[in-house]
């Protein structure tokens, strides 16, 4: 007993010493701007985080290697929240303490939980592909920026794409909506209802309960009973690959399937049995896909110059590029803020104004031609459709937006 006790005392003293060390490390520097990034590298959505967040850091490193943003070095501080809400709250407070001017959020429950705090602390948060579709309304959510197509915009994008594919008219057509049975899955339903009335098509919803790996019954219902002209899928995690397999297995042509943004990566296609098995599968994207971008080549050149191999995370370019895109928009907002202040160090409020003046920043096609304004924090809801052809995803459309009036009507309704 006594021996144990003395070990414990020593261990406790050591822990205290380390804590003190931790406290002193956070020295703020004058020519440094801190950005907080929440990520999930170990939780339920880690299959996305392990590709997305390295993309973010690589872009920041690239900019820093060229002297930073307007002379300021960027320190992107990342905290892994494991897709849980309490660590996200802690992460936000940590970023605030470190003087972050901007925060990248990760995950819908976390985004929702922090909405109020961001507003009270006057730090803007970006939630690309997460959070409420209504947060596109900058008047209602002044500190929350989706900066990517919301589920509403993805819904209108999907329907407009289907309309083009089916010959310009949806009258009398049938569209199945295969969705994950959670709030995010149900979010586009009011948009679909209105679109069905406007365009005269019939839509039926097929809900897949969590964790979404068992959907044989729903898919059989779609392929044998409902027999739709097109299927829209809105699934998360492992379930998109299951949907591809099931639809393929029941003989439904994948060229009549379009997936929302979280079921659209190379990882989903590989898990479903590879490109050969997923020919024709359409995916909606809010960032460019693949390696044919100058920024990706620059990142690779930076790694080569340091004598390091090219990051292996680029293998899943859909997520890696999203990370790059988010980083690029963050730094563009910071750049706008510094310019507006004539070179002085910006505050969170300045960066919000900087984000609200992002315009014509496309990074060679990687980022959509979005225009973020104080009213529209979504930037216009631009999407691209990429289709599986041969051994890769091939661009099937340029950046487009659809049915903006309908979305504006829904945003105003709240």
């Amino acid at each position, binding site marked *: 007993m006594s021996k144990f006790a003395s070990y414990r005392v020593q261990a406790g003293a050591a822990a205290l010493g380390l804590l003190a060390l931790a406290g002193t490390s956070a020295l703020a520097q004058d020519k440094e701007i801190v950005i907080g990034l929440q990520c999930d590298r170990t939780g339920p959505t880690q299959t996305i985080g392990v590709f997305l967040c390295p993309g973010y850091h690589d872009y*920041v490193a690239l900019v820093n290697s060229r002297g930073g943003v307007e002379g300021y070095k960027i320190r992107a501080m990342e905290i892994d929240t494991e897709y849980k809400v309490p660590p996200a709250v802690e992460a936000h407070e940590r970023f605030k303490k470190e003087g972050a001017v901007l925060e990248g959020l990760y995950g819908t429950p976390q985004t929702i939980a922090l909405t109020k705090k961001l507003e009270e602390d006057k730090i803007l948060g970006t939630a690309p592909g997460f959070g*409420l579709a209504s947060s596109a309304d900058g008047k209602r959510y002044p500190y929350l920026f989706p900066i990517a197509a919301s589920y509403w915009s993805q819904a209108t994008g999907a329907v407009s794409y289907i309309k083009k594919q089916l010959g310009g008219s949806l009258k009398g057509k049938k569209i199945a909506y295969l969705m994950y049975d959670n709030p995010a899955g149900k979010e586009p339903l009011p948009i679909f209802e209105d679109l069905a009335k406007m365009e005269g098509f019939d839509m039926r919803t097929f809900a897949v309960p969590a964790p979404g790996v068992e959907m044989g019954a729903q898919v059989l219902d779609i392929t044998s009973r409902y027999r739709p002209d097109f299927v829209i899928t809105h699934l998360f995690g492992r379930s998109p690959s299951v949907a591809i397999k099931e639809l393929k297995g029941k003989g439904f042509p994948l060229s009549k399937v379009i997936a929302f943004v979280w079921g659209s990566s190379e990882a989903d296609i590989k898990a479903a049995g590879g490109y050969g098995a997923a020919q024709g599968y359409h995916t909606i994207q809010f960032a460019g896909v693949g390696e044919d971008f100058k920024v990706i080549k620059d990142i690779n050149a930076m790694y080569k110059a340091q004598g390091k191999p090219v990051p292996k995370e680029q293998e899943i370019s859909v997520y890696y590029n999203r990370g790059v895109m988010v980083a690029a928009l963050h730094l563009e907002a910071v750049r706008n803020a510094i310019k507006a202040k004539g070179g002085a160090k910006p505050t969170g409020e300045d960066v919000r104004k900087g984000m609200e003046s992002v315009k014509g920043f496309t990074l060679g096609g990687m980022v959509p031609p979005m225009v973020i304004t104080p009213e529209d924090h979504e930037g216009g809801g631009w999407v691209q459709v990429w289709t599986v052809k041969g051994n890769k995803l091939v661009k099937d459309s340029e950046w487009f937006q659809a049915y903006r009036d309908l979305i504006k009507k829904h945003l105003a309704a709240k």
Partner: protein
Amino acid sequence: MLHRESGTFKTSYAADMALYPLPIARWTVAMIVLLFAVIIPLALDDYYLSILNLVLIAIVGALGLNILVGYTGQISVGHAAFMSVGAYTAANLAVHAHMPFWVTLPAGGMMAALVGAIVGIPSLRIKGLYLAIATLAGQLIIEWIINHTPAISGGAQASIEVPRPTLWGHHMKTQGQLYFFLLFFAALATVATLNLVRSRIGRAFVAIRDQDIAAEIIGVDIYRYKLLSFAISSFYAGVCGVLYTYYLGIANYEQFQINVSIDYLAMIIIGGLGSVLGSIFGAIFVTMLPIVIRLVMEPLAGLFLNEGELSSVVSSVRLVLFGGLIIFFLVIEPEGLNRLWRNIRNYFRVWPFSY
């Protein structure tokens, strides 16, 4: 005597009933009150207070689960669902009926207690792992109902924004203000549990846990007390959910899914089943350990890694270390941190004259 008791010299019922029979215990409690009510809010900045706030909320939930699992011996993996019941009840009352927190908070607790008692009905017939599965069903059913009932969930993404709690016209919104708000309820929950477990009800719970047939024979109405245990435990969970709602300013059931139930079970098992202090230790351990590990690792790993590599390494090592430490503490003391603390305390009680 300040320090050491010897023998029992109680001459009145009041002395026998005292929560703190030793002067040193009273002094300790006074010091703890001083520490938490005065020194901590003055000494710590917003960041550390926010961590403490999360711990305080977790304490309320862990105490509730410990009443059910630790004291009554009825296992439940539906604790998070009861939190969401409390959260949505309070959110709806606060938004649609404009009720203040001192109405919505007990109302959320009562609604959760009612739902908890219903989910607890299978406990009258089944025990152990079978009951665990029955409460798991309760968790999933409650989640499903909230997800599919816009009248409860408020429509958009099943979330309801709630105004900040107000007291005498003041909005409580900074971490410091919310700290006092949460501290009050965490302290209330702790004192209430300490008293509950030494009351007739608490003794009946323990009797049921130790041997339900024997308890029935000595006159404990086990049906009534099992349901009561579910109701009280769920009341705490409901209050915990309401506190979360006010702390975040929004109710959203995705914060109360099955993994949260498991987290709370982990808290009470690591802290010590059937002990109030254990619930508190467990809540502190599970909430703070990942944060402490990261705070310690960041400067060390930062010496030879850049920002991008650091995040990847730290989050992975943290997970391994967290799991390893849980195993380590459970192996050196299977009865939890509370027992570990008691061992240390007993050692120093007779120090330096140990025998």
